């Protein structure tokens, strides 16, 4: 009898807790509690930032030591590859300088939109993703520094992601490789598509690429900035990794390797730019 009563009580507790959890999830998606939850999360991020910064400062050198020891063989091969790449880049630099001169003339005449001239806020990554299922990082800049939700985040090489949540002193950046990340891009001969993240370490997948489009591995991919795009135009995103034309389909499968190595990211710049309303 006592055991039966205890079992009933246990099941009732389970049902109540499950229902409350489902209610919380539903409220998160639909109700006005999203703002409250966001505020709580931002507050927690601000409160934990000093701890994260301190531990990151201690663990970074240790992590780098182990990474260096483990990757020594790979580092030698990569060094040789990079030397070849430097030579190619020097040649491209000269070509780019000539193209820049032409572009400057064109811009001065036609006033085309361009990513340069956007004010930026420099920040440092203080935390890796807290969840294994969302690819977000935390930076040590927040609303008090001029960072706002929706602002693009870049590094020296190109696009990193965008700000999804901003507390007073910290902000959460959703990385390009997060499956929820969608970026309007342009590549090849003016082909526009949407780049979607496929997860940690995986290339981005371009959607809505016409089967008839012509491109090649290595082609640069930049943000398109079309209409109400979430990013200004011209920010480097990556390079085409592979193109696959599937017979009978209206679209091609194009994979893009991000330019930024998101696994060793440390410093970023938040562009103080918001999509037009």
């Amino acid at each position, binding site marked *: 009898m006592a055991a039966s009563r205890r079992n009933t009580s246990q099941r009732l507790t389970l049902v109540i807790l499950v229902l409350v959890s489902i209610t919380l999830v539903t409220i998160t998606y639909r109700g006005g509690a999203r703002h409250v939850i966001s505020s709580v999360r931002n507050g927690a991020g601000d409160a934990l930032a000093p701890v994260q910064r301190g531990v990151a400062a201690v663990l970074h050198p240790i992590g780098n030591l182990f990474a260096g020891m483990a990757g020594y063989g790979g580092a030698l091969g990569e060094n040789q590859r990079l030397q070849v790449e430097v030579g190619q880049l020097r040649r491209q630099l000269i070509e780019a300088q000539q193209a820049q001169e032409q572009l400057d003339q064109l811009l001065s005449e036609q006033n085309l939109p361009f990513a340069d001239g956007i004010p930026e806020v420099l920040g440092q990554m203080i935390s890796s993703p807290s969840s294994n*299922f969302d690819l977000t990082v935390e930076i040590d800049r927040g609303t008090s520094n001029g960072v706002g939700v929706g602002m693009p985040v870049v590094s020296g090489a190109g696009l990193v992601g965008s700000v999804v949540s901003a507390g007073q002193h910290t902000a959460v950046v959703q990385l390009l490789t997060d499956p929820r990340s969608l970026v309007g891009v342009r590549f090849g001969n003016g082909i526009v598509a949407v780049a979607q993240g496929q997860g940690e370490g995986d290339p981005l997948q371009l959607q809505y690429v016409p089967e008839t489009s012509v491109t090649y591995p290595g082609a640069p991919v930049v943000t398109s900035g079309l209409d109400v795009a979430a990013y200004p135009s011209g920010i480097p995103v990556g390079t085409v990794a592979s193109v696959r034309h599937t017979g009978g389909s209206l679209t091609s499968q194009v994979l893009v390797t991000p330019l930024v190595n998101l696994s060793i990211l440390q410093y970023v710049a938040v562009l103080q730019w918001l999509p037009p309303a």
Partner: protein
Amino acid sequence: MTLRTWGRFGLIALVAVFVQVGILNQIAVGGAHADVFLLLAISAGLVAGPQRGAEMAFALGLVADVLVQTPYGLSSLCYVLVAFAVGVATGAMNRRPTLGFQVAAALLGGVGGTLLFAGLGTLIGQPSVPRHQLVIIVAVVAAGCVLLANLACRLLEWAVAVAPGAHHDAGIFASGSAR
């Protein structure tokens, strides 16, 4: 559960926040890291039984969800189910859980909890994780749970003031084991 129990449990949850955010998040293996909250939820089921364990796991989930960008309440839902299942399995043994049982529960709870989180996330509209990545996440989380299972159980035994190795909610231990 007394106020003292909840106070001690709150202290453990607070320490878990700092451990997760400050240490475990910085140590990624293949892009995945251990989940101390899932570990504590499993241990709550082992130590406090299905009912109390589920309550503690629910509270842990609420705390864990503050630190992430996934829907609020998703972690609570997963942890409650895992803790309850572990608690029922422990109660069915009808004797105090051995170290081997703790490790087995941590392994199965780690695997099951992670898959449950991924599955429920996909069900409510979260983008699904690529299969190869999910395998890495499951392996890393389960390994973390196995390595730290005994320590987590000892901490929760201190919190719920149960004699070490005893089971809080099992019928045969209920009258004599709680201090």
